[in-house]
């Protein structure tokens, strides 16, 4: 077996690390614009979908969003949009964020102008468990929020509850949780109640 001197090992590793770092940085720089476009497009598609638009043409989503929605911020500094929904009504989009099981979760909630009823929601997550918590981004789960009420009969804000077996037709404030993802579901519940509390009074 060949004998390697310490100097050789030192320079060998140094060179290798440098080469790897260089290649990775170049790849990161080269791919970044494409990733950023993906993210912007994804965001626009999702907001449009929550507002009832069939944003099948992904490439056009950013432009379409600019046409139907006007960005503003809430008094508490939260990202919001005044949006003209697909069904002809006007609505309000609010950015919501919170914690899942492994990392941040966030999303957009589309409400009617009086902020008393949800028209649609979209959720995102950074690192929830694939197949379990990650299912909060599935349309099947997101549609469970459609038509849920955010205020009681007196007009006071009532936070939505997300729990197993929730979502009965006679419960306007309850939503069925994702099975196998109790903590992520609770995260969604907390995210909605805390983020919407700032906006819906």
């Amino acid at each position: 077996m060949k004998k390697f001197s310490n100097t050789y090992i030192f320079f060998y590793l140094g060179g290798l690390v440098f080469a790897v770092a260089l290649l990775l940085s170049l790849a990161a720089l080269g791919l970044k614009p494409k990733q950023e476009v993906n993210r912007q497009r994804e965001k626009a598609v999702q907001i449009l979908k929550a507002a009832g638009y069939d944003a099948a043409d992904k490439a056009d989503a950013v432009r379409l969003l600019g046409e139907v929605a006007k960005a503003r911020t809430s008094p508490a500094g939260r990202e919001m949009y005044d949006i003209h929904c697909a069904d002809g009504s006007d609505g309000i989009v609010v950015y919501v964020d919170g914690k899942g099981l492994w990392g941040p979760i966030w999303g957009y909630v589309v409400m009617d102008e009086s902020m008393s009823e949800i028209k649609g929601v979209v959720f995102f997550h950074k690192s929830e468990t694939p197949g379990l918590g990650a299912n909060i981004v599935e349309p099947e789960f997101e549609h469970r929020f459609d038509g849920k009420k955010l205020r009681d009969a007196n007009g006071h804000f009532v936070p939505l509850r997300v729990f197993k077996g929730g979502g009965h037709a006679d419960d306007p404030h309850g939503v069925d949780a994702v099975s196998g993802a109790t903590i992520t579901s609770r995260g969604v519940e907390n995210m909605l109640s805390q983020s919407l509390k700032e906006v819906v009074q």
Partner: protein
Amino acid sequence: MKKYLGPLNRENPILVQVLGVCSALAVTAQLKPAVVMALSVTVVCALSNLIISLIRNTIPPRVRIIVQLLVVSFFVVMVDMFLQAYVYDVSKMLSVFVGLIITNCIVMGRLEAFALSHKPLPSLMDGLMNGLGYGLVLVVVGSLRELLGRGTLWNIRIMPQALYEAGYLDNGLMILPPMALILIGSLIWIFNRKPKNAR
């Protein structure tokens, strides 16, 4: 050719060598992430086997693990960035598990056991086949769990509606982590049973 086919059968990395079980348990709740994960591991395993084999005579044995780790990490980060740039939807679904390929024992196991002592082309084949052997198990388990747990495959409904009307229910346990362990455990058991005519 035949000598490379072991990983698909009697030398399967998951079922016989019991390597890479962690990610196999984690990403098999549905078919789609299982397939993408299988492809990612195959690419990483094959390419890092190739590179390590190419530079095998220059690697000082004392730091070979560090060198292997460096090469594996390079490919994993590359795969992650490419997934984010070109198949954004899937990369969101796999989230942290792509990064965790770095610690997948199959990849490093093949580098240690094969690439360090073999020529580049056989090493490439070996990595490819081990990745595919891993992927095969992921696809089988992923299909079973998605089909029985949700009644779908690749998010397309397979179980007919009539079955649900007749009282059939999706087995929620299938998509929970314990069922992955039980399924893979059963597969390992089936695979390692003694043939009838064995001594």
